[in-house]
């Protein structure tokens, strides 16, 4: 781990710990909700990948933009989205962040710079490039970050975005979360070469990083975001991680065969980024177990309140089902 990340103030480290934990507890809540049959529609959880969203988003403020994926709860929360309104959205309630119109795959909060989760794999890349263009024109140092998966990296739009962002020096950070799978296809079966290398022909720097090490992610994002803010153009970060839960909750009910080795899953669980940061904090005597315990209690409290809010939130009014299609309806 390099100089800068290891010199972070302990408050910053604790904040990252707290944010990762928030994501984890919300996702575990959703896993239970899903098992209980309480969630409409498909749900894709981010468990085990929290270090990426958190390590990147610590560099961003509300005026920076992010675009996300079908696995987007973690990005939403890391960027400062409200867990209560996110849960209400996933429950399909009127006080959800999108009024129940979006759901799990479309959680968005523009007031926080969250352009939103996206049901189209690769769809967020072009949106982020556009936001980066807007940011560049605004000229006030904002950046746009696109989170996307290893599967999404095979969509041609990534190459298109690298090309344009390089030409125009867009303040764009492309964060590929390589979690080993594209749905049920192991990455190597559908992805040739290393994704991080795909930036090089365009003259864009590529950084590969351990995606389960929040400090390593923080470090890579630090470099990329600073570059973007300084007008030096885009960076591609490939964060190596693993999806320890299913692609989609409930997949065991429809898959006839396992697509991966349970031992592999277990091995990766030992690389869980949250205990890993805890160990780091202890090793470097930056926190006591009680402190972390206090954080855990606080976060559990927040999540419990969020669940309460969401559960008690009213259903949307079907009379308004046509929604806000146009800003200027006739």
């Amino acid at each position, binding site marked *: 781990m390099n100089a800068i990340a290891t010199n972070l103030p302990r408050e910053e480290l604790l904040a990252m710990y707290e944010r990762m934990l928030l994501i984890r507890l919300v996702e575990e809540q959703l896993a239970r909700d899903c098992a209980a049959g309480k969630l409409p529609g498909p749900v894709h959880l981010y468990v085990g990948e929290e270090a990426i969203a958190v390590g990147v988003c610590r560099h961003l403020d509300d005026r920076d933009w992010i675009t996300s994926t079908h696995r987007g709860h973690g990005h939403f929360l890391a960027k400062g989205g409200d867990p209560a309104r996110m849960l209400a959205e996933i429950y399909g309630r009127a006080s959800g962040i999108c009024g129940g119109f979006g759901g799990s795959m479309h959680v968005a909060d523009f007031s926080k710079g969250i352009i939103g989760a996206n049901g189209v794999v690769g769809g967020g890349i072009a949106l982020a490039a556009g936001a980066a263009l807007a940011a560049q024109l605004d000229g006030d140092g904002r950046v746009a970050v696109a989170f996307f998966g290893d599967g999404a990296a095979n969509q041609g739009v990534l190459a298109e975005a690298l090309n344009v962002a390089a030409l125009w020096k867009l303040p764009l950070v492309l964060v590929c979360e390589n979690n080993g799978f594209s749905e049920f296809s192991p990455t190597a079966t*559908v992805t040739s070469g290393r994704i991080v290398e795909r930036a090089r022909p365009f003259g864009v720097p590529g950084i590969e990083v351990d995606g389960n090490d929040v400090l390593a992610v923080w470090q890579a994002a630090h470099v990329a975001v600073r570059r973007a803010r300084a007008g030096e153009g885009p960076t591609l970060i490939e964060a190596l991680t693993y999806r320890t839960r299913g692609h989609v909750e409930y997949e065991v009910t429809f898959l006839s065969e396992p697509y991966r080795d349970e031992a592999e899953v277990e091995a990766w669980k030992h690389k869980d980024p949250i205990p890993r940061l805890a160990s780091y904090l202890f090793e470097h005597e930056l926190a006591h177990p009680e402190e972390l315990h206090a954080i855990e209690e606080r976060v559990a409290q927040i999540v419990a309140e969020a669940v309460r809010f969401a559960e008690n939130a009213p259903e949307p009014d079907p009379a308004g089902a046509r929604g806000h299609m146009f800003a200027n309806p006739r």
Partner: protein
Amino acid sequence: MARKRMIQAMNEALHEEMERDPSIVLFGEDVKASLFGDTKGLWKRFGPERVRDTPICETLIAGMAVGAAAAGRRVICHMMFGNFVYTGMDAIANQAAKLRFMTNGQIKLPITFIAVSGGGRSAAAQHSDAIHPVLANLGGIKVVMPSSPADAKGLLKAAIRDDDPVFFLQAAGRGGEPGEVPADEYLVPLGEACVRRPGRDVTVVAIGSMVRPALKCAEALEGEGIEVEVIDPRTIVPLDLDTILGSVRKTGRLVVVDEARDTCSFASHIAALAAEHAFDALRAPIRRVTVPDCAIPFAPVLERAVLPSVERIEEAIRRTLKHGGRS
């Protein structure tokens, strides 16, 4: 006959046709694991040469389907959700729909694209579009929309054997619906509508996923002595216009039920065809039961409110019947 789910019927069709014709190659994202179950077992049975998992790259996949077909293969290309077809749209609209035409019929393009289409399962806006009007307007693409397991099997087999690009659209979330499927081999030809239920008072043309609610509604109205004739076009390109017009000429009243957004829906097209070719027989305004011109909302209560329901179909039928004939 045996009771089977629609997805099983499709799975059988795929097995039988790939067995029958070794020139068939099938590819798409995760066709080996099979998200919906329709392609289950094919990889094991036919091997990794003929059954291929692709990366996520619909632009390429759809274009490869055209190229492989132009080069002599019979192709089955799985596009998963209808909304992902937009990503591969160039190859479908500019290449598949036009390559034979532009080259004066030099080649056949035997491609079956499979996708689920429509809503109903809170999959939200980007997974719930009913894409058939867009495809039907392209001109060079046949569009198959089965409403039962038996039809799904027979139509899929016919689609695969067809020498033109065909989109086989399975109604989203309806793959589990059971029905009787004949044991012996059979085909359901493209372009033959089916009168699902005869009746003399009003014609209801119901497309794909809408056949079930239309039939439910017809059953409910039977008790009041209202005879609803329910027609299932089964394929919208080619369209069996004769069966539809014959029914309208008999009943004089037409309701079209389509899970598409209203503007330029297939419901509109059928209404237009009837307003031209069966005009003199019409005794009441033609009503459409469609999705309003909005995206599909996520929350179940909202989604239900925009999708055509038995209640909305019933209301349309009643209004049509109430109309006092020609003024």
